[in-house]
């Protein structure tokens, strides 16, 4: 199993450009998450999904959009990139064996710089 894969690994955007960060998991997990991590800081949840066709906002959703058409894929779309979106983006998928009981597996991350 490859686990959670993310592409690209690095990207530099100009202000106002748009891009899609790709995330794919091969563990058949229903739960998927997008986080951002600024230097020296913790993880902030952007969006999450509990299954195909279902998404919900996290702590910091502004400036981002997501979709979940399949169990495997959970792309994150940045519209009109701003310097404040410079960060490392992690995708994660989760399995659960009960309510609140959710172990998350993280992808390697995408390092995004907006200039």
């Amino acid at each position, binding site marked *: 199993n490859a686990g959670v894969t993310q592409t690209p690994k690095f990207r530099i955007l100009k202000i106002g450009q748009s891009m899609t960060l790709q995330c794919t998991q091969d563990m058949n997990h229903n*739960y998927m*998450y997008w986080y951002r991590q600024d230097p020296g*800081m*913790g*993880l*902030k*949840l952007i969006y*999450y999904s*509990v299954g195909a066709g279902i998404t*919900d906002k*996290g*702590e910091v959703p502004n400036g981002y959009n997501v979709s979940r058409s399949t169990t495997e894929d959970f792309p994150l779309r940045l519209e009109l990139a701003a310097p404040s979106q410079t960060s490392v983006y*992690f995708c994660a998928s*989760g399995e*659960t064996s009960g*309510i*609140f*009981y*959710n*172990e*998350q*597996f*993280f*992808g*390697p*991350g995408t390092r995004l710089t907006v200039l």
Partner: protein
Amino acid sequence: QQPVQSPQAVILREGEDAVINCSSSKALYSVHWYRQKHGEAPVFLMILLKGGEQKGHDKISASFNEKKQQSSLYLTASQLSYSGTYFCGTGGSQGNLIFGKGTKLSVKP
């Protein structure tokens, strides 16, 4: 609301013990612990649930005090491999966690 972790950083010698605390101003139903090494993705360590159930690492233990809304992670006989930043996460029933700012642990030979 973001849980508060303490200390912010700790330096240990191999073999020493450490405790990392995570406190919340809201009622806790679960606390999740992750470790992140520099330049890598976070890795799951433990989940503690209200009621005492827990799942996780076999060399790291933790406690969950529901009344104090606090969890503590106990690292005993630390090894070099324990170095990294430890994050606690609290929150939703669907894994929609709010993470603390992290505690940086450095283990020296």
